[in-house]
């Protein structure tokens, strides 16, 4: 297990997990997880299905109690101050948790009201514009495409400007274009100072987005570091001449056209 040695930032970590274990019945899911996430960074938790990623996120999101160990978000302990923790983060779960019967705008207004904002309507309109959903704002979320739904989901998570965002497999089940849109949204978030903890089973996604990457395997963090540090764990790269075939994704995007009017603004 590699320890955190971040010489650049010695701030209080935004997320701290120490010795967390969790078992469901006799099945141990987390066997002592330690990790720290620096404020304003993107941290990717990588692991295959069943590695315990979602369980860890649910513990951090105060939806599940750890059997042992401690976890805190923005300095608040999840077990003893869940109320303070809930004010500090926002969760985007594995399945887009939007209300399909409500319109996109109504979804945002609802979350704004639940976060007790003074003017939820204005916040909703701002977010619709920011996520290129203004035209769709008056339509029921049930009519949205997968990518739009995910963007609405993330927009709902941004209401109230929580300093920490948990994204549990944000791009699972999305088509390549929608995935790029979500990635852009995540980058924008981090650029504005939000701490992002995301889980993914796509190595490419972690490579693309994360400042630091941890690999969760069989309930433990087996390795943690920057992409460069992880690459250095393997023998140095050999130079080989390989005829480069375009990836299917590149072909797909070239043919379909990356209409990323949605991604930038």
């Amino acid at each position: 297990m590699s320890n955190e040695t971040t010489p650049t930032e010695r701030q209080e970590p935004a997320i701290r997990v120490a010795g967390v274990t969790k078992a469901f019945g006799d099945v141990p899911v987390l066997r002592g997880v330690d990790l720290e996430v620096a404020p304003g960074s993107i941290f990717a938790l990588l692991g295959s299905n069943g590695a315990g990623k979602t369980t860890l996120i649910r513990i951090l999101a105060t939806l599940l109690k750890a059997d042992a160990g401690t976890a805190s978000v923005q300095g608040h302990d999840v077990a003893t101050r869940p109320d303070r923790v809930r004010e500090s983060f926002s969760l985007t779960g594995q399945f887009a948790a939007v209300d399909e019967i409500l319109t996109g705008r109504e979804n945002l207004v609802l979350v704004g009201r639940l976060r007790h904002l003074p003017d939820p309507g204005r916040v909703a309109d701002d977010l619709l514009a920011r996520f290129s959903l203004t035209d769709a704002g008056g339509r029921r979320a049930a009519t949205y495409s997968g990518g739009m739904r995910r963007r609405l989901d993330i927009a709902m998570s941004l209401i109230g400007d929580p300093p920490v965002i948990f994204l549990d497999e944000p791009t699972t089940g999305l088509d390549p274009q929608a995935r790029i849109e979500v990635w852009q949204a995540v980058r924008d978030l981090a650029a504005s100072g939000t701490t992002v903890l995301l889980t993914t089973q796509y190595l490419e996604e972690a490579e693309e987005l994360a400042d630091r990457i941890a690999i969760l395997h069989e309930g433990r963090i087996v390795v943690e570091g920057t992409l460069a540090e992880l690459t250095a764990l393997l023998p140095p790269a050999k130079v080989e001449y390989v005829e480069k075939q375009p990836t299917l994704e590149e072909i797909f995007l070239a043919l379909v056209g990356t209409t990323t009017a949605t991604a930038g603004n």
Partner: protein
Amino acid sequence: MSTHVVADTRALLGRSLRHILRSPDTIITTAITPIAMLLLFVYVFGAAIDSGDGKYVNYLLPGILLITVASGIAYTSYRLFLDLQGGIFERFLSMPIARSAALWGHVLTSLVANAISVVLVVLVALLMGFRSGAGILAWLAVAGILVLFTLALTWLAVIAGLAAKSPDGAGGFAYPIIFLPFISSAFVPTDGMPGPVRWFAENQPVTSIVNTLRHLLGEQPVGDDAWLALAWCAGLLVLAYALAMRAYRRRFA
């Protein structure tokens, strides 16, 4: 956090009421079975039923109202189940809202939806000749008992919604409750029933509730039935609420 209970509950109540407004079929389907029973029993079987003096529709309506509520609460478990399955419930619980608001939103929605269904059924009964000379206080008492009955059954529905593994399972628990009025004084007087059935009919909650509503609407003294009905409703409500909260806490530690 508890300072937000009212605001949070109101926000979530508004949400579920929108669901009902946008799928009014749930209210129609809730009302349609009791209305069909009303028609069937008044116009087909009614002539063969000796319910004493007065019109059979007057005798029948209280039981039909309980059936209306019993079929309406199935939608509460169903909606709660869908929220849990879709992840939006976890989204609510991961926000700094009053923890109870997520359930109360559904419970109050059940009250509103069932009230509308009950009014629809009463309107149909009026068209069929139902009449009552009951005063405003008696009507308020009828409404009060129905609200208490709805609340008690709704908390049962919450347990079912929390425990269900499939949408069908979430709604299915209501069938035995819909059936309960048949073995009570709701459709026919209990006098003619054979011993054990009669004993069950006279000692199960529906009979005392039906009798109380019937006496209130028929401008007769309610007697001990009223206390018994209140005790059943309140007891059931407290028990269902306690079990629902236990299931809720167990699931979301």
